[in-house]
């Protein structure tokens, strides 16, 4: 089960954070922060070889003792990072990628909301519900 999903914008600050349980959020913040370097490293290593039409999915970034960290970068340099419980069986790459594509689609809908200024941290209900369903489904 995914324990944390974070959306990081181009300026490298978290736009949206969601974690279960909520108390460990600070710990997840530091884990995701350290993984940002790895995302950049993997993307530059992949180069143009695996450019998907929607975004680059380097997949598993690194495993820690408790969690596995997965990353995804869109064409607009928005990064999605998710932490998954290590105790679960290994996930196939395309499962993780399809989860990220759903997140990406939801995110583009959120950015089309005309009211908040770009970069405002908001918690839109529809996006929240979608993330909840993804977090409980991936297992």
């Amino acid at each position, binding site marked *: 089960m995914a324990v944390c999903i974070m959306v990081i914008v181009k300026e490298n600050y978290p736009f949206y954070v969601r974690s279960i349980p909520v108390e460990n959020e600070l710990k997840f913040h530091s884990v995701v922060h350290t993984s940002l370097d790895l995302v950049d490293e993997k993307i530059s290593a992949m180069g143009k070889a695996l450019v998907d039409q929607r975004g680059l999915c380097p997949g598993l970034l690194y495993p820690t003792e408790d969690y596995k960290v997965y990353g995804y970068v869109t064409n607009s340099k928005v990064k999605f990072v998710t932490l998954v419980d290590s105790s679960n069986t290994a996930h196939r790459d395309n499962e993780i990628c399809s989860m990220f594509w759903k997140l990406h689609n939801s995110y583009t*809908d959120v950015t*089309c909301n005309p009211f*908040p200024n770009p970069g405002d941290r908001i918690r839109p209900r529809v*996006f929240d519900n979608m993330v909840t369903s993804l977090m409980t489904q991936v297992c």
Partner: protein
Amino acid sequence: MSQEFNRGPAPQQNKDLFILTYGALVAQLCKDYEKDEDVNKYLDKMGYGIGTRLVEDFLAQSSVRRCHSYSEVTHIIAEVAFKIYLGVTPSVPCNNSSRNEFSLILDKNPLSEFVGELPAGRSSLCYCSLLCGIIRGALEMVHLAADVTFLQDKLKGDSVTEIGITFLKQPEEKKYRRKK
């Protein structure tokens, strides 16, 4: 605008730019006016201007016959006009209460597709007031006075979006009795 009068059904076009433009318009009005009532009023006024002009294009494109009842008019608006311009067909429930009040029920409102919920402090904003103005302006150009308002709005938490049209009696239609 209408070069060919017999275009047939409009091709499916990407409406995202239109939806985003409308969103930007409402957002700008919200920045310009503090009160929700003012924003609603100006959206309605703009819609009225659009409606008085759009009706010509609509009549040319659709070549509908003359309507003989308010119910026919409402059905034409729902089944032809909304279909052409927004790509959705609202349902018109049978309104038994009176013969000049009708509702258009929209399950999915394309204009507010990307707006999840109204922003804080704007709870009485009618996001799609423009539509009310358009319907009102169009009806007035065909000599039908009507009051068009939003009865239910999905953005405010209702289950559907409902537009109410109340046809008003025309003063010119009164028969003047000659004094005997």
